[in-house]
């Protein structure tokens, strides 16, 4: 039925560990573990869209099959309350229960899986409370932690797990995956579309697939690179060039007008800064120390934006510093 159509990200989620793209060492190790039905506690980390959750889910499916998975696998993510009390009660209770009968046709090792997705969002206390639980019930339960920033997982937990780093996907692997989806869905990529997709996604496969699907939905099965750019929200070069041009003029009001316009056009500030930096580095007329000055303030502004500061003021500050640096020489 058409209206139950799934997002492609879910539709083409790898069904088995083998299918996980690009993460050879991870796949290799897990394959071994699956064969021997012996698994350590696991910690997956890496940037978004590299296949961490997919691997964990695929592994659960391969180990237990669809029926048993419900009883043997528990997935907790940031959408569930995971304070210290939950760890003390729910998680401990789940970890402590013994396992039931295996199902024919799947390895069904004698332990359960507890997947803690987005584990870096758990509090320190909650993580601490897990330490002993992990050890005490390791006979019947294996933990899988998934996170973006391994530094936010406390050391005692990390040292109890086998760590796997998921790398951003580079061009070749991503295009293989994308072209697979394209043939399945009958999408025709026009020249340059694949490169554009690689560029806007920056190694994030989920972003690439979502962008592709959005483009297809909006403009039909023939995908043009420009459509991809529009959909991804990337800032076109003309905007940043205009900004740089405004910075060359000596009056502040010119810069202010340019920034006001850019904001009113709805461009995201972070994207704008990124493109601004690219434009800056390409510009041959600037000296190195000028660039250095501007880049410093770019970095500061980015941090402020992440903290939730106002877009207009931050951009204006960057532009004002850029103007001073460019015009003072």
């Amino acid at each position, binding site marked *: 039925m058409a209206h139950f159509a799934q997002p492609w990200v879910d539709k083409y989620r790898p069904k088995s560990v083998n299918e996980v793209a690009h993460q050879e060492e991870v796949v290799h190790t897990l394959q071994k573990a699956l064969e021997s039905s012996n698994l350590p506690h696991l910690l997956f980390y890496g940037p978004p869209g590299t296949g961490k959750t997919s691997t964990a889910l695929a592994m659960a499916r391969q180990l237990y099959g669809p029926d048993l998975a419900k009883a043997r696998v528990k997935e907790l993510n940031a959408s569930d309350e995971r304070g210290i009390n939950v760890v003390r009660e729910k998680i401990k209770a789940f970890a402590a229960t013994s396992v039931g009968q295996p199902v024919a046709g799947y390895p069904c090792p004698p332990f359960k899986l507890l997947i803690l997705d987005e584990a870096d969002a758990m509090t320190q206390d909650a993580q601490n409370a897990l330490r002993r639980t992990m050890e005490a019930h390791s006979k019947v339960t294996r933990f899988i932690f998934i996170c973006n920033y391994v530094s936010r997982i406390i050391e005692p937990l990390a040292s109890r797990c086998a760590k796997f780093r998921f790398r951003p996907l580079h061009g070749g692997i991503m295009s293989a995956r994308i072209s697979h989806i394209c043939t399945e869905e009958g999408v025709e990529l026009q020249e340059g579309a694949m490169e554009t997709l690689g560029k806007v996604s920056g190694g994030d496969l989920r972003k690439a697939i979502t962008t592709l699907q959005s483009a297809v939905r909006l403009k039909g099965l023939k995908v043009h690179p420009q459509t991809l750019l529009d959909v991804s929200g990337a800032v076109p070069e003309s905007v940043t060039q205009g900004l740089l041009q405004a910075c060359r003029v000596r009056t502040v009001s010119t810069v202010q007008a340019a920034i006001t316009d850019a904001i009113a056009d*709805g*461009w995201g*500030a972070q994207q704008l800064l990124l493109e601004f930096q690219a434009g800056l580095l390409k510009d041959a007329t600037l000296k190195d120390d000028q660039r250095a000055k501007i880049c410093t303030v770019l970095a500061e502004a980015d941090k402020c934006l992440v903290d939730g500061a106002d877009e207009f003021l931050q951009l*204006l500050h960057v532009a004002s510093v850029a103007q001073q640096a460019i015009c003072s020489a």
Partner: protein
Amino acid sequence: MLWVDKYRPRQLDDLIIHQDIGDSLKKLVSTGDCPHLLFYGPPGAGKKTLIIGLLREIYGAPVEKIKVETKPWKIELPNRNIEIELTTVQSNYHVEMNPSDVGNQDRYIVQEVIKDMCRNRPLELKGQRGYKVLLLNEVDRLSREAQHSLRRTMEKYSATCRLVFSCSNVSKVIDPLRSRCLCVRVPGPTGAEVQQVLQHVADKENLQLPDALRQRVVQMSERNLRRALLSLETCRVTQYPFTDNQPVQLPDWEMYIQEIASFILQEQSPKRLYEVRGKLYELLVNCLPAELIMRTLAVQLSRKVDDELRHKTIELAAFYEHRLQEGQKAIYHLEAFVAKFMSEYKSWSIAVLG
């Protein structure tokens, strides 16, 4: 009814501006399947109008039958129970809410209320789509935790529920959410587009709108359509028939901030600072967002000083606004900005004028 509401297009076909986006949305719906959506753009650009049009396109006219409901949600946490009051606007097909209203407890709204709504499949009535739409306003004001909590919810229940977000500051929406949505940029209307809409409304109201006045309203609107329409209506109320040189009134808070700016420039002393504080409090108790005060004040101040000092003003404003976001109480940071500006201005005027 205000003109802003009266002349809000109800359907994607009626749009005057952003027709290209409207067409894309129509195509999106006609494929029978709609992804999660994130509309972003400055205030008064038409995000909400597009969303209303989209809902209408998906579900047809019955979606306009809405009821507003304020209901307390009892949420059981492991160690305590809390009660959160949340206002929702809903039809049979969609629910609209403003989860950031509940402040720092927004996480529970996402974890309990939204998840609950997502989980329930809508009744399969004839002619109805297999999913419902959950419309969340101002997602940029949601806390980090709440946004993280949305991540898996969006994937898990994508079969029964589509989330539509709207926000003005897209940098405040975390990457994982953005990568799960189809992001739609809604740019503010250009001057010409604002003019076109003003003329359209004036024609419908049978008003004679002189060119000069229209130009001025457009200029004052700062590419914000809502603001343009409101000030046009204000002009209509104050004086009609329109004259060419009729003044267009600024919103009163903006005039007040202008006043504060000139007040600061007149004299820089602790006593003046004390008086300014009183005025800032006046703005804050009227529920004006602190960042808006900071931004407007910075723009007003920098308008009246010389270029060298402008750079400094911008730097200060950026610095203190960031502090303001990190901190708890807005007044400290606003006042710190004013104090610092006064000192900079004073030393500059001593250096220049002697």
